[in-house]
């Protein structure tokens, strides 16, 4: 839009919305920090086989509970070993895969369900809206941790079951936010214009509504991903999530719990990494919200 070769035009038009967005994003410390940490951990997860010094499943009963290097250990096991002599750093690195995968896929599943419900409720209103609002109410009334634990216990704890259970439980925020945003957008003139020229409903939803609620959607995706990662860790900590010997950070905390008295780092390290990952994703989500909707900051 902006003609940069003409200084007068540049002065009149000012920076384009896209340039403004970029400038806001680059000056947002939380967003930059969050993105860098998340990117780093995604890279670690992808490159796990290259980065991990040992096999995360390889037990060595001669090398049980070796302390980390900063507590008198050796560089052979930088973060020490657990109660079965498995290298802690390697398990931590492979654990990033589990957390990120569960978070991403669960957020994707719940995102599809929640967005479909929310957009339908916001666009069609009336009975559709009443049904969706009712379903949201029902979903919110169900205690998430309890239901997830019960279902995982009945179906058996595996990565797939945990992902599906979380994906089917965490759609409420998507539905709430997408409903509100769609309601707002569908009152705009350009939606009415599209309706008047006879555009089909799917076309309006895809080309008029979706692009305009997309920013909000991305924010919720990140926040729900963090939520799913925390829940997986809690389920695994309670012994009804990802099952041993899979390296999950929540499971590592749970396994280290019994030795907490003498080897507190067994609990401290995986919990701290989990905290940093969730913090980074949340900062990214909050940052994205600030940057894409600066007027709605709270």
């Amino acid at each position, binding site marked *: 839009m902006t003609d940069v070769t003409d200084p007068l035009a540049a002065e009149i038009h000012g920076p384009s919305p896209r340039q403004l967005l970029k400038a806001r994003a680059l000056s947002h410390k939380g967003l930059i920090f969050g993105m860098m940490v998340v990117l780093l951990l995604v890279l670690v997860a992808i490159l796990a086989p290259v980065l991990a010094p040992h096999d995360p499943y390889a037990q060595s009963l001669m090398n049980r509970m070796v302390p980390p290097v900063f507590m008198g250990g050796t560089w052979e096991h930088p973060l020490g070993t657990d109660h079965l002599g498995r290298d802690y750093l390697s398990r931590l690195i492979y654990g990033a895969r589990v957390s990120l995968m569960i978070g991403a896929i669960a957020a994707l599943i719940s995102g599809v369900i929640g967005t479909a419900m929310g957009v339908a409720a916001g666009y069609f209103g009336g009975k559709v809206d009443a049904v969706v609002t*009712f379903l949201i*109410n*029902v979903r*919110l*009334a*169900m*205690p*998430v*941790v*309890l*239901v997830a*634990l*019960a*279902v995982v*216990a*009945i*179906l058996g704890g595996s990565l797939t079951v945990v992902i599906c259970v979380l994906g089917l439980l965490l759609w409420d925020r998507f539905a709430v936010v997408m409903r509100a945003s769609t309601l707002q957008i569908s009152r705009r003139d350009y939606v009415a214009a599209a309706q008047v020229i006879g555009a089909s409903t799917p076309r309006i939803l895809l080309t008029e509504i979706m692009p305009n609620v997309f920013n909000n959607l991305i924010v919720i995706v990140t926040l729900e991903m*963090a939520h799913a990662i*925390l829940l997986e*860790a*809690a389920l695994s*900590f*309670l*012994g*009804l999530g990802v099952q041993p010997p899979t390296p999950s950070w*929540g499971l590592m*905390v749970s396994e280290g*719990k019994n030795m*907490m*008295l003498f080897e*507190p780092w067994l*609990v*401290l390290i995986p*919990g701290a990494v*989990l*905290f940093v990952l*969730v*913090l980074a994703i*949340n*900062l990214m989500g*909050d940052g994205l919200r600030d940057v894409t909707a600066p007027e709605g900051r*709270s």
Partner: protein
Amino acid sequence: MLTFILKRLGLALLVALTVSFISFSLLFLSGDPAAALAGETASGEDVEALRRLYGFDRPMLVQYAEWLFSALRGDFGESYYFKLPVASLIAERLQVTMTLGLCGILFALVTAVPLGVIAAIRPNSIIDRVALFLSVAGQAMPSFWFGLILIVVFAIQLGWLPPSGAATWRHFIMPTIVLGYYAMPAIMRLTRAGMLDVLNSDFIRTARAKGAGETRVLFKHALRNAIIPVVSLAAVQMGFMLGGSIVVESVFALHGAGYLAWESIARNDLPTVQALILVFSMFYIVFTFLADVLNAWLDPRMRSA
């Protein structure tokens, strides 16, 4: 106001009914509850005997109706594990959970509201930054990990507090902090946002123009309006917290309803699990209903919603 209450009550009942059906049907997720109960090594005859004993051979809807009507009378059947009525088991354990939930929400309110107010009065001050940090950290903190750290520091290293159990009030200090911290960020953010919003409104300017003192403006005019949504959020959070207490109770070995839920799930004690899911949902439904009514009472504009 009465129409509003009746409408909300009808909705709450409908939600409760749906939730009861879902928590009942969870039992059938495994396909055959009798086989699940008998275990993998059981013979076909044993499974059949169990099926008849617990009535799994009848249509599911019949079983549901029967379960629902007994539940309405306060009879949730008998626990497979304890061989005791589920209702009395839960009632006994709920005391601990209710105490914990109440202490948790009080802790959250007592810390979050003042912080949120000060943060709103002095945006970008040190306190605002501390408050922001606490809320961002709180949202990312795995509660089981936070609990374990508190145990390591205050129970093991310093020896100030007992690490687990529910014998005295001192046993509740750490669980209260962990559970309360979980609810704190949302309450603080809402208080801060509400205060900022109200402080910029016309009636505050009018109050100041009339010459009302700053304390009076802040507490009599601003806080009273900003606190309305916070009260209803606190009620909703209370419902969430009771359901979320399962993690905290297991970390601190507090034998409340959440702990019972965890044990029962691990033991395949389905009647207890069903009843607990229903009870926790009912708490949430009652609390949100009360929050809605309270909101409508405090702010008549909400009544049309």
